[in-house]
């Protein structure tokens, strides 16, 4: 810190009087503890702009609305229903709500701030994840550049996953936080409380906590193997303090998860979840392929990691190999798992990249950069200014500071069926609907009270037959019309242009007429309603 001050106030003036007076003027009177470096300012700028960017993205039309509907129900009833409560066709299906806390948070944020509240939660979550990764790499490498590489890799690979607003983001935040804590240079005693506490929170926010347990397990096994290889002794492996610490941490985390409304049943539910047969028809639960954007991004990141591992002078721990291979395999198995692999892969790429950079290209060593780090009050001020500006012009900032309500239509994705839902409400449509699964969540949230949604994004809660029938109808099965009659469907809500083929087929059949249509969605009404 002193070096920085000296550098900042360096003067070549030979006149001592003038020099003294200038010194008086230029001396940084900002409290030392609050001074930050220009790198901190750049970091803050990046994060603030990221916050602004994610705040400005329209809310994706799936998932979030369904979760808000569940949150509303839980909040209003004061309890979590035992059976699926919103989709009548799923009546009696056990409802283990692994995201009840996120849903309540989300609903409350919506209650207070409207759509701006959700946007704030969304942007803040991703920004914090980015901040943690930046911090983690910065601490490990002292390299601002490689911190940025890490964050870029994370965003590049997870872009598709991050586009959907859902409780999984809360799980991601918990995961990145845990990863950062486990990778910290120094172990803190407070971690004994913080990590189990984190797991308790995680288990109530989202059902992805097993990924965290898996992460600790990788660190445990990896450490044990490293110690075993180094010492060649089993005894040393088990006697190692760090190995034991990971083991106990894993146990405490596993116990902490039990603090949830379902107790042990939460474990059963999340472990059984991925084997739900309905999920096999969803793209995001299918294996990762190069045809997918995220598959290409993962391949690129994976290739860079392989190169980095080939060149790195840094020791490669077994734990990081286990984490990368474990989560990578999971992502190959089910593309949705890439959300956990991306931050880890980006992190290890950055720290090994930084090591290669420092080792091979000493003339461009980051060490030099560190010498030039200046801590100054002006950076603190502009950092705070940056945060303030970005917050002020974000939707929630505008609402809080200027009382300016966000434009609802512009705040949600183009596929959100606002017009269709308004039409359904205006016409007081009742009874069983048939709807694109993608629109189901919004219909649950804002649709007419007496209309029954056919399917939403929680497809694992749909009975197998219902889901099969849904697929047969949307995939233009020959018995589609008969199935619609069997369910007594008099109203169909489809998203456009995705379901244009189904729309044309139904129009051709002559039993349906268009009641409402805009660029986003269409409402079809049966000419002779089934009574």
């Amino acid at each position, binding site marked *: 810190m002193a070096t920085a001050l000296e550098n900042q106030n360096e003067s070549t003036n030979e006149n001592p009087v003038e020099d003294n007076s200038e010194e008086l003027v230029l001396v940084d009177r900002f409290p030392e503890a609050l001074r930050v470096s220009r790198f901190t300012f750049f970091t803050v700028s990046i994060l603030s702009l990221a916050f602004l960017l994610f705040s400005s993205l329209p809310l994706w039309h799936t998932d979030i609305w369904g979760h808000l509907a569940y949150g509303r129900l839980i909040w209003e009833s004061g309890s979590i229903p035992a059976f699926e409560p919103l989709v009548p066709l799923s009546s009696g299906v056990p409802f283990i709500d692994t995201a009840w806390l996120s849903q309540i948070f989300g609903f409350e944020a919506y209650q207070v701030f409207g759509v701006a509240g959700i946007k704030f939660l969304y942007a803040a979550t991703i920004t914090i994840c980015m901040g943690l990764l930046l911090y983690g790499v910065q601490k490990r490498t002292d390299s601002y550049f490689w911190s940025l590489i890490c964050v870029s890799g994370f965003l590049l690979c997870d872009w598709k996953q991050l586009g959907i607003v859902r409780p999984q983001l809360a799980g991601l935040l918990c995961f990145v936080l845990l990863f950062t804590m486990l990778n910290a240079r120094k172990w803190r005693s407070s971690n004994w409380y913080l990590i189990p506490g984190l797991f308790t929170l995680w288990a109530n926010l989202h059902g992805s906590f097993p990924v965290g347990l898996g992460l600790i397990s990788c660190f445990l096994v990896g450490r044990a193997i490293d110690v075993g290889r180094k010492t060649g002794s089993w005894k040393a492996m088990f006697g190692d*303090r760090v190995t*034991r610490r990971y083991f106990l941490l894993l146990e*405490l985390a596993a116990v902490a998860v039990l603090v949830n409304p379902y*107790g*042990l*049943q939460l474990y059963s539910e999340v472990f059984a979840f991925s084997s739900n047969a309905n999920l096999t028809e969803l793209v995001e639960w299918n294996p990762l392929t190069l045809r997918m954007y995220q598959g290409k991004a993962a391949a690129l990141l994976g290739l860079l990691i392989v190169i980095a591992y080939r060149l790195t002078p840094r020791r490669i721990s077994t734990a990081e190999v286990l984490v990368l291979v474990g989560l990578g395999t999971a992502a190959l198995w089910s593309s949705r798992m890439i959300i956990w692999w991306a931050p880890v892969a980006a992190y290890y790429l950055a720290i090994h990249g930084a090591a290669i950079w420092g080792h091979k290209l000493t003339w461009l060593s980051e060490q030099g950069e560190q010498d030039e780090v200046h801590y100054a009050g002006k950076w603190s001020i502009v950092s705070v200014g940056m945060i303030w500006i970005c917050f002020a012009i974000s939707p929630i900032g505008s609402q809080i500071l200027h009382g300016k309500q966000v434009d609802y239509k512009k705040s949600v994705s183009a596929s959100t069926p606002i017009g269709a839902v308004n039409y359904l409400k205006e016409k007081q449509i009742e009874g069983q609907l048939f709807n694109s699964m993608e629109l189901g969540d919004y219909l649950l949230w804002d649709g007419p009270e007496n209309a029954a949604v056919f399917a939403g994004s929680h497809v694992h809660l749909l*009975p197998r037959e*219902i889901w099969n029938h849904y697929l047969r109808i949307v995939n233009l099965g020959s018995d589609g019309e008969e199935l619609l009659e*069997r369910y007594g469907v008099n109203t169909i809500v489809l998203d456009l242009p995705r379901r244009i083929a189904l729309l044309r087929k139904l129009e051709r059949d002559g039993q349906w007429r268009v009641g409402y249509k805009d660029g986003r969605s269409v409402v079809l009404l049966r000419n002779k309603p*089934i009574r």
Partner: protein
Amino acid sequence: MKSHKLSLKTVIAIQVLVVVAFCGAYTLGSKDSQQKFNEVFLKQETFPEINIERKVPLRIEPFYDDPSVVTDEELAAVLKQVRPKFPRKHLKPNHVEHALRTWSIHSTFQDPDVVSGIEMRDFLVDHARFLASWGDEASPLLVDEPAGISIRWGSQVGGSVHHDHWLASLTEAGIQLDEPVFAPSRRDMDVNDVIQQSLRDFRLDEREVEWSAMAFGLWIPPVKQWKTTDGRAVSFDQIALRLVRGHKRFGVCVGTHRVYSLMLLIRLDDQFDILSDKVHEEAYAYLERVRDLISVCQFEDGHWPANWMDGKTALTDPQEIPEYKNVIATGHHLEWLAIAPKELHPPHEQIVKAAKWVIKNTTEHSEAEILQKYTFYSHVGNALALWRNTHAATFWHDWQVAHPYVPEAVDHKDAIEARKPAL
């Protein structure tokens, strides 16, 4: 912050905490929680079971004894036509089930060619009897399951055609809960095991739930909710809503079994409160709509058409419908109307007309023709017996006393068991 070395005490304390926490969570957890845990982590299958508190199934008594609908002679003539005069070889389970439903396991016949109730029951509940009829030409009708017996149903040869029809028919036929059921490799099961298996296997959204609804309704009340193997909780409310769901043309026998099953559930609800008030109202409203539809679609000759659900249009814009389908519609409507309160009836003269048409139609056909369409005509016999507040077996038993079987009377004109009525 300094990292302290963990003491042995701490390590042991954490182990104790972990064991206590997980054991406590397991033991204090609900039964569902424990079952789910065993299922997911210990790969243990669970077989939920409900307690059935009766030894014989419930019976929905008809409301009326109305000779204006069907006289004794007419009833006898119809019942004679629908006697289960099946060849013993390749006995069709579907025919036997329909016959049992009409005639019950208590039926006896002086004519040795006619299969008795006991014989029919044994064919259905004993694999050895099935084997005697089919040999190796059909797969077993009874299928061993880990904790029960299921029935092979579908369109394959020698199978029960409709899901749970085996159970519903035997139930209406008055089988006992502890009646042994002999599957190919298990001899320690009884009807209760079949019911439990059926309750577990039930899928609310499968194509036909009419028979399951009837069977469960006649066995399990006052229990009104149970769990299936996939963990779904099913109730009579859900079944009733499922029965009213969708276009009325869907369902077994041109949608009429949905109506019968609904009527049966409503009657059971009056006795056991198995439906919520809201669902009761909805089901009742459905039956009122059916009443209104059949009130305006009856043809001059008295039959209700197979497209009865089209209401007046069925009459004003008649379709070419095979006669047997009209028999299905008319016979089945008479059946549910026999157990329905008068408020759900179309005008009485319509019921009389329908009965006369179906009696005429049934008695005009030869036994061979009836046998071909036995499943449809069997309902006519049952419906008409219900309208006389009796049962086919009881009525026929008494009838045979006064009108004994004459072996040499080969032509039905000569048979004095039941002469063709003059209509």
